[in-house]
């Protein structure tokens, strides 16, 4: 990476307090395009909080988050390259699949909305149900639509919050392939998970959070078993 280029994601001295509780402290890191970062740590380590700060959903108490040089909390434009896939799907049950995607596309100010929506529906295998209200969708359909909504605007930085939790094996495999495709297309992925095995082969970097502080930040080691041993030692109090 050319050092004079603006990094895709740069976090400077991020701190997030909830009253007296400090959820994140002194977090600073940089993520470049093409990286697939695993964000690991025990429960309550601050992983989801960090992700929400990056996405602009939570304001830091100190420090800042910059996407392509723009402050995510001060500049709405900074959020343009971001996409978030979390437990919630951000869908409206009273609208159809097509209407939901249309809304998301127009919200992001995309060109050729109709074409992109149709393409996304096709990729999600939902074209035949495009005009049905989301209300009647099965779990699997909801997940596919949620992924479509999150990636519709081709986000350069895709944020994932424990995406494999509710997925069955087929859906998990499909998501893994999707993430690999994003990496190959030169996008960056940051994935919060408490089970590193899910994305181990695809990941390029591992960051471990504990008690709101980054305790490890290294390229993904080749051997998961070895890593686990070290990891358990790292996070056990």
């Amino acid at each position, binding site marked *: 990476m050319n050092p004079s280029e603006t990094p895709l994601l740069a976090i400077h001295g991020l701190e997030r307090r909830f009253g007296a509780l400090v959820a994140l402290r002194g977090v600073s890191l940089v993520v470049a395009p093409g990286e697939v970062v695993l964000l690991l740590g025990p429960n309550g380590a601050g992983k989801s909080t960090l992700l*929400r700060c990056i*996405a*602009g*959903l*939570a*304001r830091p108490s100190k420090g800042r988050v910059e996407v392509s040089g723009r402050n995510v*909390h001060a500049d*709405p*434009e*900074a*959020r*343009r390259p*971001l996409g*978030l896939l*979390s437990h*919630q*799907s*951000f*869908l*409206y*049950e*009273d*609208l159809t699949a097509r*209407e939901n995607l249309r*809304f*998301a596309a*127009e*919200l*992001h*100010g995309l060109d050729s909305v109709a074409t992109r929506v149709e393409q996304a529906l096709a990729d999600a295998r939902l074209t035949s149900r495009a005009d049905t*209200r989301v209300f009647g969708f099965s779990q699997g359909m909801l997940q596919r639509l949620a992924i479509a*909504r999150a990636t519709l605007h081709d986000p350069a930085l895709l944020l994932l919050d424990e995406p494999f939790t509710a997925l069955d094996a087929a859906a998990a495999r499909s998501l893994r392939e999707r993430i690999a495709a994003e990496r190959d297309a030169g996008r960056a992925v940051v994935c919060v998970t408490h089970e590193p095995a899910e994305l181990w082969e695809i990941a390029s970097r591992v960051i471990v959070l504990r008690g709101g502080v980054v305790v490890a930040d290294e390229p993904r080691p080749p051997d998961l078993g070895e890593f686990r041993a070290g990891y358990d030692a790292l996070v056990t109090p």
Partner: protein
Amino acid sequence: MSVLRVALLIAAKDLRIERRSRTALHTATLFAVLVLLTVVFARDGGSVSLLTLAPSVLWITIALSSLVALNRAFTLEREHAALEGILLAPVPRSALFLGKWLANLAFVSLVMTITFPLWILFYGVAVTPALFAVAAVALLASIGVTAIGTVFSAMAVRTRHAELLLPVLMLPFLLPPIFFAAQSTVRLLAGRPLDELWGSFRFLLLYDVAFATMAALLFPAVVDE
């Protein structure tokens, strides 16, 4: 993409959802009609004429049914955390506020449009051009009220007793505009000339400007974590 365009996008989405399910519209309208009827049955037909009560009842009805209507804006965003989908997008918070406000204003206006003729009918109000002025006052008052309601409902929706809390928060803020609006209505129905009402119009305008500004300034703090 301009703030207005995003706002209209959000408002259109809200109204499309409302058209799909119509629950909120039915409930708010039915509630308004029930308020009209409650007063008819709660007074002594012999001693108090409906026409005397008409201006007060109009404003009580508008105030109470606005409260029912305002909860709609953010409860529809609760499921699947849809609001966060908007907060994630590269659009300013002010566009979200404006969009919700416009949707609220459209919705409240719709409820009033349906209720107004029933009020005229049930309370024996004479149909004169003055009624246009009454409608205009209603619109003027709604502007400020919906702006405040947009902010307060965004807060109330995150609490356990949203439906109970919103009226408790909002009604004290509604008393001043209700007073001046009711005053204007009394005078308008009595056929008083318009220039007697400038004081009330000025008050309502000032109220709208002050609270629309405050609401726009404070809204981002409410939705940002």
